[in-house]
């Protein structure tokens, strides 16, 4: 997508918002300009810190999930025996809505960063694991044969075949799950904590009926999700340019 098209889409969304605000003339829906002013002010007053706290929580969960799920997925994708052993477990755990474990996680890990990082990690881990595993298992035997025939042992196969095949798979899984990750973060931060964008939106603004501040928080959290999405999308194009070429 071109930059101009993205800009145009953003402008039309803002315009729709403004029109709706004019139409309703309600306190619960301030216009984008008013919210932008509050956003600028609040960013310096504490919203900025909440943004960084939330950002840190998501990014560290992404890092831990990727570092654990990619090797695990590669191992399962390469070894039929290992996969046969773990597949039922993954099959059961993958569709379970991890968010319902939040109360239990809070009991065990407390209300600090760890519990939030852990719940997002849980949510990201399985999609990455499954996509990387399937990608590794789907590599054509011909490809493996011809690389082995060049003299590749296990380590070289991993380095030159399995790893490069896993990177785009992991990024695709990440890109698709990042929205859920931020949504869960919002939920986890909306109670039993004193920092993060969820806390700012629910406890500090919504609870005090401070509507412009609440909207500023919503915008900040949306921006966080968008930013992460853009970064992953960029990485995908950077690290897997061949996926974006057209077939002959």
């Amino acid at each position, binding site marked *: 997508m071109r930059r101009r098209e993205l800009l145009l889409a953003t402008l039309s969304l803002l315009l729709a918002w403004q029109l709706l605000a004019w139409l309703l003339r309600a306190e619960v829906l301030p216009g984008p300009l008013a919210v932008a002013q509050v956003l600028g002010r609040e960013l310096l007053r504490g919203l900025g810190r909440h943004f960084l706290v939330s950002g840190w929580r998501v990014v560290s969960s992404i890092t831990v999930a990727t570092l654990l799920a990619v090797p695990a997925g590669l191992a399962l994708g390469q070894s039929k025996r290992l996969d046969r052993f773990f597949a039922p477990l993954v099959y059961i755990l993958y569709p379970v809505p991890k968010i319902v474990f939040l109360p239990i996680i809070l009991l065990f890990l407390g209300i600090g960063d760890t519990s939030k990082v852990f719940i997002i990690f849980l949510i990201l881990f399985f999609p990455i694991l499954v996509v990387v595993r399937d990608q590794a298992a789907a590599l054509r035997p011909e490809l493996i*044969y*011809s690389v082995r025939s060049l003299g590749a042992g296990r380590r070289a196969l991993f380095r030159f075949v399995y790893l490069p095949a896993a990177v785009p798979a992991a990024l695709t899984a990440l890109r698709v799950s990042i929205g859920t990750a931020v949504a869960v973060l919002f939920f986890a931060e909306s109670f039993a904590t004193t920092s993060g964008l969820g806390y700012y939106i629910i406890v500090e603004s919504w609870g005090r009926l401070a509507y412009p501040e609440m909207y500023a928080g919503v915008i900040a959290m949306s921006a966080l999700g968008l930013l992460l999405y853009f970064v992953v999308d960029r990485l995908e194009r950077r690290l897997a340019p061949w996926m974006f070429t057209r077939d002959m």
Partner: protein
Amino acid sequence: MICFSHVTFAYPNQPPVFQDFCWQVEPGEAWAVIGPSGCGKSTLLYLAAGLRQPGAGQVLVAGQPVPRPRASTGLVLQDFGLLPWATVWENAALVMRMGQFYRDKRVPGDSPRPYPRPDITPDQVNRWLARLGIADQRDKYPNQISGGQRQRTAIARSLLQQPNLLLMDEPFSSLDALTREDLQRLTLELRQETGVTTVIVTHNIEEAVYLGQRILALDRAPNREVCTIANPGAGTLDFRGQPAYQQKCTELRAILAARQGMEEK
């Protein structure tokens, strides 16, 4: 160069493909292997490449058993042999990078080094790409080039290993007729330039006669007897135009048909 002695091989829960099978390839020879589908042509190649192990008997390449693929055997497959995420240049240079990857690896005893040579240079990669006529495709990905260009890339990569044995499994089957003839001619030229021993598996009678100075005709599994057809005329670029070529094609066709007919009776 290749020595199959009393080889028996079967896939799990299936009747054997080869039984007490003996076959010998001398250094510098050009072989073509032909036979009906499912006769074990590819299996024969995989056994020689060290990708499969015989259940009984022994496979020796250059006098050594092949418990794993050796870097001085080149293998070119029909398709899917290239890394889809690497450009033409990177695919060819894979063997160079792998040589560097294993540079410090020591091999115990006097067994030959199974890893690619550590001394391949980018310059050599460029030269082989140029020799195969794909230098201008170097930055394209496999899905952006034609099937013929993909096979040229695979051949360039194999030859960069400086192999003394080149195994090809139906390398030109999925190409159109003109490209196929073009690459067959190129294969002959490269053989003349490098003197590499070649075994090419094909289901195409004309290809077998054009490229194989000796032709191994396999039968439906299990293969016990070796049926070889001498074809001393092959190996020159203009062989296709000669009467001997037509004669050989007819002869080979008759042999294959007779065997098939015998089975059907």
